[in-house]
């Protein structure tokens, strides 16, 4: 299971209060974790990446194991610590005021 930490607004939207866990077939990648996340929580479709192009929304970032994965390709394997469940995959809203 891959642990995923969502930003507060997406937790509210998905009606979860804490991190979530998703199951991924095969070697988990950036793209397959997001696929699994959206399959488990369809309300998140379109909120993290574009419905059609599947491009990351500009004000969101992907972090794991203190690394910025935001600009990696969708087929990039996730770090072992994330695959083992020792570390979460973080979906983070870019910092901004207002």
């Amino acid at each position: 299971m891959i642990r995923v930490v969502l930003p507060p607004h997406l937790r509210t939207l998905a009606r979860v209060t804490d991190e979530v866990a998703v199951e991924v077939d095969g070697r988990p990648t950036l793209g397959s974790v997001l696929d699994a996340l959206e399959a488990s929580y369809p309300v998140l479709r379109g909120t993290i990446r574009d419905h059609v192009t599947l491009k990351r929304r500009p004000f969101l970032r992907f972090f794991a194991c203190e690394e910025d994965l935001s600009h990696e390709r969708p087929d990039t394997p996730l770090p072992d610590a994330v695959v083992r469940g020792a570390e979460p995959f973080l979906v983070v809203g870019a910092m901004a005021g207002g």
Partner: protein
Amino acid sequence: MSGVRLLVGTRKGAFVLTSDGKRDKWEVNGPHFAGWEIYHLKGSPVDQNRLYASQSSGWFGQIVQRSNDGGKTWEPVGNKFAYDGVPGTHQWYDGTPHPWEFKRVWHLEPSLHDPDTVYAGVEDAALFQTTDGGQNWTELPGLRGHGSGPRWQPGAGGLCLHTILIDPSDPKRIFIAISAAGAFRSDDGAKTWQPINRGLRSEGIPNPTAEVGHCVHRIAMHRSRPRTLFMQKHWDVMRTDDGGDSWQEVSGNLPTDFGFVIDVHAHEPETIYVVPIKSDSEHFPLDGRLRVYRSRGGGNEWEALTNGLPQRDCYVNVLRDAMSVDSLDPCGVYFGTTGGQVYASANAGDSWTAVVRDLPPVISVEVQTLR
């Protein structure tokens, strides 16, 4: 027992304000969708408990919420707004071509006959429709396909389709308005469209009387006279009596004819309301005095309505979707400000009270008359 329900969209959530027919005591419920921008909420005319809300965020994009119990509970429905075919380009602020990109839903207009059918006006400007209660949204491509799309340009708020009016006597006749393209009419259920901007004059475009390019801020209609429309343009208050084929200026004695909102009294089709704003570079009331202006003759002669409104040091704005009227007698008039106040008049504008004073900046106000 009659009553009213105000649906208030703000920069940081939605609020539902309710009162009985006297409209002097209010219950405030919210925020719903706290922290999100709520550009618009609106109820179905045929099912007062069916509501729709446009929830959006620069971070997370667009969500559409639906309520089946008058706003007590909500469920997210479809949020995929994909343009039909290859979207093409419109003009950017500097006149260069810019690709059409979906940003948000500005306005939701439920069908007059079917609670599951809703039109959505979006940025970048296009008209979408759902016929299954919001689960799926499809562009009605005739509008952008009209041919003038490459000449449309964004106003300061973006290239937004913000007004949708359905003719109660002929549901196939629909009026829409876009900043900054102008007003358009369809006579065939949104299949084909024609620009209806003859008579408008706008100094901010190369040809002030061009067929498209006008920054129309809002259009209003009285259901008994669907060929008469009132318009608050960027500058100028206008009216047409031939379904938009020609417009005449009715700014008359307004102290400034810049503004955003315009609405029509529920029972008097020639009584209209505007909130004059100082200018396009100073978006607040003239002289710091918040005044609604009412014309009882369809324009030209206007009276200032000030009783209960701040008459000094007031520098708020009233955005284009932030005024609404109920259909009680006397007619109730409501508007919200960027300062977070929602003002109500239970006597057609003669006097006003603040229902709430400290909401986030108000983007939209819709009223439902509950029977």
